[in-house]
């Protein structure tokens, strides 16, 4: 069983092969990048150049493929219509980011009544480079490292390796009911570990 977390970028240690994860996203061929300061050729160019970045950003914020897809669609449907013809690439990206921020805020207000994740003002928008680099792997690793062994393993199996409860139970040698309880307790403990000093933006 793998102990380390998977990380794809930055030349850090290669990820251990997930035990159960069959839902590893496809490698998307990115569209042509446009140098900042130029303008886009049309909405398709805007879409090609930004959809990957916006999706990844949303995914990191909601943790769920379908929700991230819904929100990405919402961003583009809202933003592309009123875009000016001659807006520069940088301006368009900033506008999309501003739209994404609002869309995410609205989503959390609707879903939980509280914004549990936000897109920060200083969110990096590197021109022509990789999409958002999430610090989730580091944060997750830090949290898991602080947990007792069984707690760490159940969360690793369920969240990172996408194992079913059944698979995780078998892996840990416990009953399915025990695995469920273990998961809830582990998550609660992990939340306490990972949430020092954080605040919520609740109305």
């Amino acid at each position, binding site marked *: 069983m793998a102990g380390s977390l998977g990380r*794809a970028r930055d030349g850090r240690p290669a*990820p251990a092969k997930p035990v159960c*994860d069959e*839902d*590893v*996203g*496809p490698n998307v061929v990115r*569209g*042509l990048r446009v140098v900042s300061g130029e303008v*886009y*050729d*049309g*909405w*398709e160019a805007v*879409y*090609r150049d930004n*959809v990957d970045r916006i999706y*990844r950003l949303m995914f*990191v914020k*909601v*943790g*769920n*493929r*379908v*929700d991230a*897809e*819904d929100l990405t669609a919402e961003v*583009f*449907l*809202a933003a*592309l*219509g*009123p*875009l*000016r*013809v001659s*807006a520069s690439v940088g*301006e368009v990206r*900033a*506008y999309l980011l*501003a739209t994404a921020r*609002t869309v995410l805020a609205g989503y959390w207000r609707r879903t*939980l*009544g*509280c914004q*549990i*994740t936000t897109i920060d003002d200083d969110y990096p928008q590197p021109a022509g480079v990789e999409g958002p680099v999430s610090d*989730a792997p580091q*944060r*997750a*690793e830090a949290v*898991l490292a602080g947990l007792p062994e069984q707690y760490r393993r159940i969360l690793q199996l369920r969240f990172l390796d*996408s194992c079913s409860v059944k698979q995780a139970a078998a892996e840990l040698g416990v009953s399915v009911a025990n695995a469920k309880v273990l998961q809830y307790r582990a*998550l*609660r403990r992990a*939340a306490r570990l*990972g*949430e020092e000093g*954080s605040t*919520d933006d609740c109305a």
Partner: protein
Amino acid sequence: MTAREVRRFVDDLLRGRRTKPFHAAEADLAELRTAITLRTARVGGDAPGEEFLSGLHRRLAAELGDPRPTGNVTPATGGTRRRFIQGASVAAAAAAIGAVGEHVLADSPGADTRTDNPQADVTLSPTLGAWRTVAASDDLLDGGVRAFDLGSVTGFVHRGNGRLRAVSGTCTHQGCRLQLDAAARRLDCPCHDTVFALTGELLRHQLPVAPRPLPRLAVREVHGAIQVYAPPAG
């Protein structure tokens, strides 16, 4: 007790299902956020699927009035910059661009812009409307402002220089509810610091694209009541 909802939310997250709304308690938030962090830490899970990408491309093509039958994300060839506004939506897009004029992308903080445009005079005109009382005449002296909520529309009515004016109370950017700053005699959008005049004109914004002025509502004063023409509450 929201423990069950939290479990369901986490379960949906793990199964890749759409999450369902519930009113989260303060104590649940850390747990939900931790679940998201753990879930997004796995390798490769953050790339969008091809099916989604081409599906959204098709939706956008339909939405933006692109007449070309496109199913794939293909590079635009020989496109002009005018391709932003093409097909069926030319007129609408041209009007929108006209409305925002030179203020588009005036995103410097505190950008002070005004939209001197005929569109400033858009009046809300419901198909099925009725005159509905929003205030008593005595309650709205000259210089006064009152908020109203008719269920179907919210807005603000004010009397200035002996003239009544009513405007929608919903920001034209993304629909946030405007708040009255009575002292400054203006309407503030809580979402993006956009500011409108009581007459509906845009006074200030920090958005890349200037939002339209607020639609007006027809307003009249009869038998000691101030009324606006609005749709029924439903």
